[in-house]
């Protein structure tokens, strides 16, 4: 059984149905990319997984259906760390306080140690540890968002457009690190990304969403190399 299993997922914004009932799976320790145009429903999917939009169907994490559970419980119980679109850093507090918040649901005594773990991946954050998060650059904020997610010691990371607003070189660096985290920590990742190349490069599988439905799914390398798919769905 997959770590995360979605069956017939529907989601609603008020009266409007945004997702029309599709299936998706994420295996333990794997990276899966979710691709598609703006408004295709990628973000909504991630938000549904962590209980931030009204969802229908079944979302099963570690064998438990989480539909209807509160976000806080899903995060605390199933160790799902969501790195939202636009990063969602707490701009008024410092870098290290952001990290501390990432570990908010943990009760163990190793939180202090994990700061170093994050700084190991993102040495630049260490330099900025006491700086107000709002003053960090875009790339640093994205790193902080990922670092904060790491502080949960997550089983699953949901990454929404991590490349958004970042210079290519930074983006590349970030994806390298994501791959590294996946390998070293065994964290499963669901990556929503516009920059298909980058996402596919580190993913095992990929889903293509189109207006609330899965238009195609398959191994990442296959999708990457399919001229037709690229033309019609990925836009180049």
């Amino acid at each position, binding site marked *: 059984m997959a770590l995360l299993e979605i069956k017939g997922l529907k989601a609603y914004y*008020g*009266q*409007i149905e945004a997702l029309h009932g599709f299936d998706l799976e994420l295996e333990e320790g794997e990276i899966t990319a979710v691709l598609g*145009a*703006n*408004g*295709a429903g990628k973000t909504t999917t991630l938000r549904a997984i962590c209980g931030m939009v009204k969802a229908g169907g079944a979302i099963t994490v570690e064998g438990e259906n989480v539909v209807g559970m509160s976000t806080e419980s899903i995060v605390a119980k199933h160790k799902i760390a969501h790195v939202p679109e636009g990063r969602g850093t707490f701009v008024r507090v410092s870098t290290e306080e952001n990290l501390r918040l990432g570990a908010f649901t943990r009760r163990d005594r190793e939180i202090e140690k994990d700061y170093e773990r994050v700084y190991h991946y993102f040495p630049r954050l260490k330099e900025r540890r006491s700086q107000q998060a709002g*003053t960090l*650059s*875009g790339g640093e904020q994205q790193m902080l968002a990922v670092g904060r997610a790491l502080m949960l010691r997550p089983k699953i990371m949901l990454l929404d457009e991590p*490349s*958004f*607003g*970042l*210079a*290519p070189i930074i*983006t590349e660096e970030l994806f390298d690190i994501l791959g590294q985290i996946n390998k070293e920590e065994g964290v499963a990742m669901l990556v929503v990304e*516009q*920059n298909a*190349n*980058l996402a596919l490069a580190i993913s095992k599988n990929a889903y293509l969403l*189109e*207006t609330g439905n899965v238009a195609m799914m398959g191994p990442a390398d296959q999708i*990457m190399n399919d001229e037709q798919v*690229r*033309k*019609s769905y990925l*836009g*180049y």
Partner: protein
Amino acid sequence: MSTGILEVEDVQVRFGGIVALDGVSFTMPEGKIVGLIGPNGAGKTTLFNCLSRLYIPNDGDIRFKGKTILDSPPHHIADIGIGRTFQNLALFSTMTVLENVMVGGHSATRSDFMSNALRLPWRRREEQALRERSAALIDYLGLGDVAHTTVGGLPFGTQKRVELARALASEPELLLMDEPAGGLNHDELEELGNVIQQIRDERGVTVLLVEHHMGLVMSISDKVVAIDFGKKISEGTPEEVQNDPEVIRAYLGTGG
């Protein structure tokens, strides 16, 4: 450098210590479609915001029809003939489609508090003319069915078209479009391409198109400008830019 309807000269924008635009220059020939491409965060939206005067460049100049726009307050930009659409929809969500488009015609109308409160005859004529003109635009963009619907509840793609209609309502000579293709399926995309070309051909509107969808940009643009890290890295015909190694490295990627 030839003069065009819009000249961007050495524009520089800094936020705090970050340089968002670092001396970008290019020219837009009148009545053409110019594609502006570049990776996320390269400075496209910043440039856009400069062109609609929401930001003031720290350095450089932007001239529209030979005159700088930097002296004009933002609300005059529509007046002098520059319209725009937004990347993340910026419609007036509680208004109907028709009303949204009519707000687009704000700069083309003149009635004020007093004449409106008193409902003077000339104001009623102006209002009727604006209604008709807006309706024509709505019809033109195939939004007739939803003309009286509140925009907040419309599908994404439809809202994008409402934005376009709204931008056209100010009768712009230059239209700035920020990622109009986002969220559209491929049938809609094709249609969008046609509409943009029609706008150019039938209305003589010059279009600046910021878009990730290379298929669209390359197929309809007369000229493409690529920027990265706040700098222009390439300029030319779609073919020239597409094959520019620098562009491939920074944006299209080696895989593409």
